[in-house]
C-alpha cells in the first residue's frame, strides 16, 4: 500500500471485506473508492454533490451518482450494499440522525467517522479563549464552518444506542498516528480522541427486510395500478434505558 494513503482511508481499507458492495457517500474525487476497488476488488458506487468530483470519479472509471447525502439516500434500495461509508461529513448533514438510519437501511454495515468535539484541544480552547475552538481537526471560524451538527464521542454513542445501532468496532484517529482501537463510550477516550471511526450495524433481527425485487423504479411514476412498495423503515427496537 502506498505510504501516502490517508489514515482514515487506511483504516477503512482494513475493515472492508474483499469483493464487497460499497457505497461511498460524499466520495469527492473517488480516491477512496479507487483504492478499495484496486486493493479489495469491491463493487463500488459513489454519491457526490460537486460536479468536479463527479467528473473526476467518471474519469477514474468509477460509478458515481451526483446527489446530496441529505436528500438522495432514499433513492437507494434497501440492503443493496454491504457497506455504506460516510467519512467526516455526518456533522455537516442537515439531519444526521436520519442519515445514520438510512445508511443502515441501504447497507448491512456503515463505516462512519466523526470529529470529536469532546477532544481536549476543543475543551481547552473553549475554556481558555472563550471562543469557538479552531483546531487542526476543525479549522474553520464559526461563521464559515460547514459543520452544523458537531458532537462528542459520548453524544454519538448515545445516538447509536437510541437508534438501536451496534458499534462493531471503533478506532481513534489522531493527526497521522496509527489508528488505535478504543471503547467509544470511555470517559478518557472522549478527552483523548481527535476523530473516531465507527463500524456500525444492526442486530440481524433488527435489519430491514431486503426486497429482492425492489419496486423503486415504479414509485416516481405514480401509476395507480401498481402497488407502491412499502417505504416504511425497519421496525426499531425501543432504545434500551441508558445504563
Amino acid at each position, binding site marked *: 500500500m502506498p505510504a501516502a494513503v490517508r489514515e482514515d482511508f487506511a483504516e477503512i481499507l482494513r475493515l472492508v471485506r474483499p469483493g464487497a458492495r460499497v457505497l461511498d457517500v460524499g466520495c469527492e474525487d473517488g480516491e477512496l473508492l479507487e483504492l478499495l476497488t484496486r486493493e479489495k476488488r469491491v463493487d463500488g458506487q459513489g454519491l457526490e454533490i460537486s*460536479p468536479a468530483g463527479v467528473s473526476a470519479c467518471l474519469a477514474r472509471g468509477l460509478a458515481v451518482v451526483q446527489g446530496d447525502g441529505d436528500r438522495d439516500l432514499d433513492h437507494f434500495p434497501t440492503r443493496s450494499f454491504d457497506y455504506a461509508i460516510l467519512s467526516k461529513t455526518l456533522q455537516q448533514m442537515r439531519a444526521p440522525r436520519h442519515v445514520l438510519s438510512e445508511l443502515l437501511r441501504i447497507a448491512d454495515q456503515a463505516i462512519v467517522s466523526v470529529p470529536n468535539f469532546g477532544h481536549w484541544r476543543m475543551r481547552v480552547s473553549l475554556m481558555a479563549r472563550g471562543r469557538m475552538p479552531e483546531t487542526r481537526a476543525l479549522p474553520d471560524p464559526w461563521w464559515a464552518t460547514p459543520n452544523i451538527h458537531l458532537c462528542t464521542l459520548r453524544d454519538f454513542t448515545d445516538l447509536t444506542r437510541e437508534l438501536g445501532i451496534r458499534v462493531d468496532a471503533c478506532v481513534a484517529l489522531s493527526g497521522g498516528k496509527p489508528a488505535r482501537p478504543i471503547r467509544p463510550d470511555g470517559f478518557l477516550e472522549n478527552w483523548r480522541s481527535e476523530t473516531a471511526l465507527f463500524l456500525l450495524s444492526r442486530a440481524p433481527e433488527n435489519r430491514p427486510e431486503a426486497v429482492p425485487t425492489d419496486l423503486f423504479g415504479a414509485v416516481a411514476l405514480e401509476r395507480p395500478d401498481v402497488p407502491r412498495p412499502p417505504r416504511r423503515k425497519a421496525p426499531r427496537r425501543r432504545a434500551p434505558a441508558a445504563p
Partner: protein
Amino acid sequence: MDAGAEASPERADGGETDGGTWRFPAAKPLRLDSGATLAPLEVAYKTYGRLNATKTNAILVCHALTGDQHAASVHPVTGKPGWWDKVIGPGLPLDPARYFIICSNVIGGCMGSTGPASPNPNTRQPYGLAFPVITIGDMVRAQAMLIEALGIETLLAVVGGSMGGMQVLQWAADYPEKLFSAVCIGAAPRHSAQNIAFHEVGRQAIMADPDWRGGAYETEGVRPEKGLAVARMAAHITYLSEAALQRKFGRELQRDGLSWGFDADFQVESYLRHQGTSFVDRFDANSYLYITRALDYFDLAAQHGGVLAEAFRKARGVRFCVLSFSSDWLYPTAESRDIVRALNAAGCRASFAEIETDKGHDAFFLDEPQLDRTLRGFFAATAQARGL
C-alpha cells in the same frame, strides 16, 4: 425456408466506405410493436473512424427527433456541420481515430431510412398515412438489424440525447447482451402529459395546413410547409430555457421602433420564423407526425409491467451513464433521476450527473465544458475497461 440470397440484407448504395444504406428484403421484414411488418426496409447510416480487428470499438450514436445520421459530417441538404460536431471528431470525446462511430437515420425518418415518404410496395406511391405507426422499440430493432448486418456483435457504447437517449434506454432493455455501456443524455423514461401536449400542437398545426392533403401531399405535388414550420416553432421553444431566450433576445427589436402591425418586430419572432422556414427545407411533415407519435407512445415502464426497474433487470453487465441539464424543462432532471433510481434498484452499475447550464434541453449539442469533461472521462474509462 431457404435462407438464400433474397433473404439476406444487401447494400443499396454506391459502396461508400463511410456509410450508405442497407436494404432488408421482404423475406426479412421488420416486425413492429403495432403488429404490422415493414418490408422492404432500408436503413441509411454514416460512420466515422474504422472498426478494429476485434470489433470492440463500435459506438452507436442515436439521433433526436429532428436529427439524422449526419452527426459529424456536413449535412447534404443544409450544408451545415453535423449536429454533434462538438462531441464527435478529432480530439473530442468520441474520436474517430479511436472508435468506430455509427449513426443511422431512424425508421420513419426522411434522410434515407424507410419512412412515410418512401414508396409503398403495394401502390408504388409514397406511403403517406399508409405507413404504419412506429415506436422507439421499432427504431431500435431496425438499428440492431443494421449492427448485425455490419458484422458487429457488441457495441462498446450506445449513446444519444433526447429521443436518442430514449433509444439508448430501449437498447438496454431489449439488447443488453449487445452492450458494454450506455449513455443516456437529457431524456426521460416516458413521455409526460406536457410532452404529449406540445407534440399534439405540432401535429395539429401540420394537419391544419390545407397542403397536408390528408398526408398525401407528395402525390399531389404540394408540401404543408406552413404547418410544419409552426410545429417546429412551437417545439423549438421547448428546447430552450427562458433564461437562454431572454439572454439571446430579450425584448430586442428587429428595426428601430414598432411596426404597429404583425411583422416580426421582435428578434425572438424573427428567430423562430427562421427556425420554422429553414426546418421545412430538410424535414418531411409526415415524418414529423410519425416520429412525434413514437415519442408519445414511449413508456419504458409500461412495457415492463409498470416497473421501470424491470426494464433493466437483464442489463446488470452494462455500464450506464445518465446525464441531465439543470435548465431542461422538456425532460427535467427529476426524470433522469427516475432512470438512475430504477437502474440502482435493478442492481445496474450507474453513474449520474446533472450538467449545470442555462441553455435548456438543447444543451446536449452545444458547447458545454462540463458535458465535454464528463463524456471524455466516461468514454476513456469505458474504453480502458474494454481493453482498448
